[in-house]
């Protein structure tokens, strides 16, 4: 766990933009190959394709084939990055990921944009809210979930340097930046981005900036809230969870994911295993499908935004 003291949010920048920018930064590495399934301009992988057309493989709508091909490319020394929406990165080709990539132990980077209900108007068919569960269940799979543009760059860099299979969930909307710049990151780490005494919020993905906003607002009401950015859902940064559990009124886990198999369940199970009894609360998609709507409206509707998080924290401190 690293400690930061973030006092303000930066101007909005889309997390998925980090993917295109990152790919360009490693484009000279002949091992890097990017596969696209007819969504390159949405995932931003197309940026790489414009500069390195020979190592950009556009196969159309064939997600299962993409995962199998990625395994094959890795088998002959390439570092394949697969690109499509989170739903088509995990659900459709799950068994290809499990057997061809993970069980075979290939160095494949599964990059998924459009995670969570943040995907918005397309509706539940396109809102992947079960990916932590699906990917986390695969032995050895690392599950990363950056919170802003700069953390996405940092995580992608670490993923590229690491040898092994990884899943990275990125999201669609433009959201305020949490960090001022790219930072050194080792896979598995969480960051404490704001300290506080009363309640700890453990969050992942774009809910992190909502949590930070909530914490900064509550500060003015005399409520002291710590915020942890869980850039890694699996492995879980146990030290960070234990640190969070020391807060007086408990721990709130916030994620754009269903409860089952998500960060909230992972945190609960760790605390139970360590024999630590602390009040726990959760903001997530429960056991529900999302619905169509603008990202901001949906986050309000499901209580995932700063207002929703504040309301829950007030309940926790009674």
């Amino acid at each position: 766990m690293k400690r930061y003291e973030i006092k303000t949010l930066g101007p909005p920048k889309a997390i998925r933009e980090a993917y295109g920018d990152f790919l360009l930064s490693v484009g000279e590495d002949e091992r890097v190959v990017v596969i696209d399934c007819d969504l390159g301009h949405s995932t931003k992988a197309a940026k790489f394709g414009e500069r390195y057309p020979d190592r950009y493989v556009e196969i159309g709508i064939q997600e299962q084939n993409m995962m199998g091909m990625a395994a094959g490319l890795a088998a002959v020394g390439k570092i394949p990055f697969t690109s499509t929406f989170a739903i088509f990165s995990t659900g459709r080709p799950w068994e290809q990921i499990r057997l061809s990539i993970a069980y075979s132990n290939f160095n494949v980077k599964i990059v998924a944009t459009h995670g969570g209900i943040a995907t918005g108007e397309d509706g539940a068919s396109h809102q992947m809210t079960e990916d932590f569960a699906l990917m986390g269940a695969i032995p050895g799979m690392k599950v990363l979930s950056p919170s802003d543009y700069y953390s996405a760059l940092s995580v992608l860099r670490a993923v590229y340097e690491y040898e092994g299979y990884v899943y990275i969930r990125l999201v669609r909307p433009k959201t305020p930046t949490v960090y001022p710049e790219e930072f050194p990151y080792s896979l598995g780490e969480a960051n404490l981005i704001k300290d506080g005494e009363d309640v700890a919020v453990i969050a992942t993905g774009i809910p992190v900036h909502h949590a930070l906003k909530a914490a900064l607002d509550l500060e003015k009401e005399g409520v002291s809230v710590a915020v942890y950015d869980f850039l890694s859902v699996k492995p879980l940064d146990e030290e960070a969870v234990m640190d969070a559990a020391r807060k007086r009124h408990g721990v709130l886990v916030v994620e754009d994911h269903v409860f089952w198999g998500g960060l909230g369940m992972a945190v609960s199970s760790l605390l139970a295993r360590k024999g630590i009894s602390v009040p726990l609360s959760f903001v997530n998609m429960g056991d529900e499908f999302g619905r169509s709507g603008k990202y901001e409206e949906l986050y309000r509707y499901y209580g995932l935004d700063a207002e929703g998080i504040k309301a829950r924290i007030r309940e926790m401190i009674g």
Partner: protein
Amino acid sequence: MNPDELKDLKEKALQVRRDIIEMTYRAQSGHQGGALSWVEIGLLLFFKVMNIRREDPFYEDRDRFVLSKGHACATLYSIWSLLGWIDREELWKFRRVDGMLQGHPSRRRTPLAETSTGSLSQGTSVAVGMALGLKMWGKPSRVYALISDAELQEGQTWEAVETAGNKGLDNLTFILDYNGLQIEGDVHEINDPTPIEEKFRAFKWETYRVEDGHDFVQLYEAFTWAKGVKGKPQLIVARTVKGKGISFMENRYEWHSKVLTEDLYRKAMKELGVHL
């Protein structure tokens, strides 16, 4: 088809196109190109070809329609409103948190959708299952599925096609909305699905080509042909124009899905005879 019917369908086609533009403009999101390309196919199915009851959309022996290319649902929702199955006010809440019309067909939120779609090619297998089940029950109902050319890239499509062919599901018709485009460009350049008819025939299907998929008369001949085929499922390949009816959208892959500015919205409506 008599001239009155034809005139009525053409008027409806104009109305559906206006609805597609209005809905995607108000939502500031959604898919125009692929919705505009199946307007005539959809209208003919719901108003002439399929055995359905306007007063009872869930009538048990109805023919089933599966919109496998689910992103093109603005057309379907507009047709539902013309059938009187949903309030037209709902159209203006398309894709909104306070509306029921989801960005892709949702059987959960609107049971008028025979199945949820949006993940391409999944509708193909569901349609095969429906056709098989209906046959098991000895029902006269037929199943129609609208598929896209990019869906021919998905493996699942071919699994469905093989099974339907081997089971001889003659109560099943796929209509291919062959507009030649997908999101990133021309389907033939991205991953060429041709020769389409030869492939389907190899899988024991009968095929029929409609040169102009926006011509009601040609389409009607194709559907009449399909009903007459015995022992095999049928594919109707309809050559269509993505973005049909709006000059700046026609055959432009960018208009698969794009936010309509006020200027372009006005321009599109003007082309559809509405002066705002």
